[in-house]
């Protein structure tokens, strides 16, 4: 079966939710829509306190090309542009707070009837852009940027990422099972934008039902490829290597090898935007883990407070000790219940105390397990030792910047060393130093 070198086999833990149909979460009284829900320049708010907004109305304007706007998840009154805790950075970040009126009325003109297959590629890209679509696997890179490759780097291969290799999560799985046409149609829109005649849908072998559904529904132009079950199979570079046999060069992007990868959830959002003009105001996410009473897959509005999500899923168990946005491997642990769901929230993982190791780390014993596990072919043992001493300049010569922070090394480390944290630390020091250098010039 197709796969890549390295990687790990953590317990899947997907049984908790992968058999449960997606439930739509009812409206809540208050939504906190963060302005920065993407990688790139922050968006500027275009509403103010007291404004009445409707579902789907633009709340912020993107600043620059690599930026994305956000939209009102429901109708109601804007309480103001306030500072809320950002689930990714953990810092206070501006957000539009909306008091829902319960009517949930659409903004004028939505949803509309559009035929994306009679529209021009550039028109479709601007639809995607104005809908605020970002990569929904968790990286939140603005999608319209990926759909506008420079002339000298033509895209000849498009992969629809239905791998979902993070343990516990099953949101993409359920989406492919229940709404295969949204995913497939979105993928066809992408193919139209890029002028491609074929595409590959990649699904891990642990989702045979999704593979069956997709094989039945896809048109002849899309090939369904079943991949070996291994983490991080869904990481962009590993996926390209497994499916196309191409290797993204060090420091390069997928477009350097003519490849483009979009998550299944992103494809569904692209379809909504291009077929009915509906912006990205809700997503499917898995609420799961040993610490949640009723694990569920939910369709949740962007900006829904974590507290309400937890409550909708029956609350937390007595021994719940950790809440993570995303999966256990690359997700971000939360310290406050006052965060809200963002476009990149692929899962809400609540772990009980038996699943959380709080012991401290010890010295590297040079066993080399991390070297075997690293899907990028790096030497995490060396990097972690350099990181302990903050020696980022030396680490650069060990290809520090090529680390994709998947956490495979830390997972296999018998000394429980926070290797990814060491690497992030050195990346930050390196970026800081080059920023200083730029300032000095």
């Amino acid at each position, binding site marked *: 079966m197709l796969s890549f070198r390295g990687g790990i086999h953590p317990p899947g833990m997907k049984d908790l939710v992968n058999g449960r149909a997606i439930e739509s979460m009812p409206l809540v009284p208050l939504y906190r829509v963060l302005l920065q829900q993407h990688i790139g320049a922050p968006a500027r708010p275009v509403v103010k306190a007291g404004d009445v907004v409707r579902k789907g109305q633009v709340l912020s304007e993107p600043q620059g090309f690599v930026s994305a706007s956000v939209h009102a998840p429901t109708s109601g009154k804007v309480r103001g542009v306030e500072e809320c805790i950002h689930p990714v950075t*953990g810092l206070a970040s501006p957000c539009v707070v909306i008091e829902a009126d319960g009517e949930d009325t659409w903004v004028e003109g939505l949803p509309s009837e559009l035929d994306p297959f009679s529209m021009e590629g550039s028109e479709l890209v601007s639809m995607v852009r104005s809908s605020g679509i970002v990569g929904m696997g968790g990286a939140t890179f603005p999608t319209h940027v990926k759909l506008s490759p420079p002339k000298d780097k033509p895209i000849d291969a498009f992969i629809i990422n239905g791998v979902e290799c993070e343990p516990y999560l099953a949101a993409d799985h359920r989406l492919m099972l229940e709404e295969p046409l949204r995913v497939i149609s979105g993928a066809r829109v992408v193919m139209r934008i890029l002028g491609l005649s074929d595409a590959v849908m990649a699904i891990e072998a642990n989702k045979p039902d999704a593979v069956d559904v997709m094989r039945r529904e896809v048109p002849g132009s899309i090939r369904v490829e079943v991949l070996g079950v291994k983490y991080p199979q869904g990481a962009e570079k590993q996926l390209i290597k497994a499916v196309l046999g191409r290797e993204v060069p060090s420091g390069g992007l997928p477009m350097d090898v003519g490849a483009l990868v979009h998550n299944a959830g992103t494809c569904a959002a692209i379809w909504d935007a291009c077929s009915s003009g509906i912006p990205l105001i809700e997503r499917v996410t898995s609420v799961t883990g040993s610490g949640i009473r009723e694990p569920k897959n939910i369709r949740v509005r962007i900006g829904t407070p974590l507290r309400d999500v937890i409550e909708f899923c029956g609350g937390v168990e007595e021994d719940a000790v950790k809440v993570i946005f995303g999966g256990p491997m690359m997700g971000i642990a939360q310290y406050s219940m006052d965060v809200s769901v963002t476009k990149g929230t692929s899962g809400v993982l609540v772990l009980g105390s038996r699943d959380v190791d*709080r012991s401290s780390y010890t010295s590297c014993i040079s066993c080399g397990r991390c070297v075997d596990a690293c899907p990028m072919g790096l030497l995490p043992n060396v990097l972690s030792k350099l990181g302990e001493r903050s020696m980022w300049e030396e680490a650069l010569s060990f290809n520090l910047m090529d680390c994709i922070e998947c956490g495979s090394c830390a997972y296999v480390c018998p000394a429980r060393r*926070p290797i990814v*944290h*060491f690497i992030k*630390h050195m990346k930050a*020091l390196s970026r800081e130093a080059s920023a200083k250098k730029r300032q000095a010039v």
Partner: protein
Amino acid sequence: MLYAVFVIGGVGFVAALVLGVAAVTFAVRPDPREVEILDLLPGANCGACGYAGCAAFAHALVEDPDTPMACTAVDADTVQRISLLLGREIEVAGPMVASVRCMGSRDRAGFRFSYLGPRDCRAAQLVAGGAKACVYGCLGLGTCEEVCPFDAIHVGVDGLPRVVVDRCTGCGTCVDACPRGIIRLVPRDSVVEIRCVSSDSPRVMKGTCDVGCIKCMLCVGVCPFDAIDVSSDGMPPVIDQGRCHGCSLCVDVCPRGVIDLYMVPRKVSIVEDRCIGCSICEQVCPFDAISGEPRRPYVVDLDRCRGCGLCVEKCPKDAIVRVGDA
């Protein structure tokens, strides 16, 4: 056997001859002063001088007569000896010392979550901006201690770093390493320092730290020298050490006890023989601590004197001395 001995021995002899000749012919003779200066420099290679280590700095001192005495770690005596060696006067900046501006020890300032990652403040800062509830406060993982080339700063059991003033050379390595900009360099003779860099509002501060500055402005109002700046908009409270005279009035009024006294300022007394009764001291004293009649020796009320030393600076006859000085 004998053959082998002669061949190896012969090769060795020829190689030794070549190396010996080369060592004499191509020898690099450094300026002997450079070697001596290098011996006098601390050898910590801290980089505070701006050169790549002590050797590079010694080289620059000898080669370029305009090089100032940028090393912060040498004492006055050593500077004297170096200037003798160079045959020129070298300029020295006033000695500085590191000052840690946070008093939020573990029992006074809370944490938002427990942090289990690498023991490095810069790494800890990456996780949701640090575990401490106060986003300005010291994380206490000791990166300053780790980077100090002079073993002059140590994190205590309360989680706050303390500077060993006698060892600190003011090289500024810790200042650069602290991810929260808590440490700064102050002149060695500084008397008071606001030990908080938070620009949080009082409302936020009350929830995060028992001692942090609440921007009550009492110190600003009481300072006779206009040396304290506590602006409300996003800037940390700070004492301008160039203006501060160390009267420590601010220390007394601070309701949070966050203004720290480094040393008790020494009060002054007037030497009767020298005083001509010009009354300048009486006029400049901000505390009405000096009184007397014109043309007769003035007296200092030690209960009122706060040791700011303004009168010492202004006295035209050098008649005012610090208590304790000869």
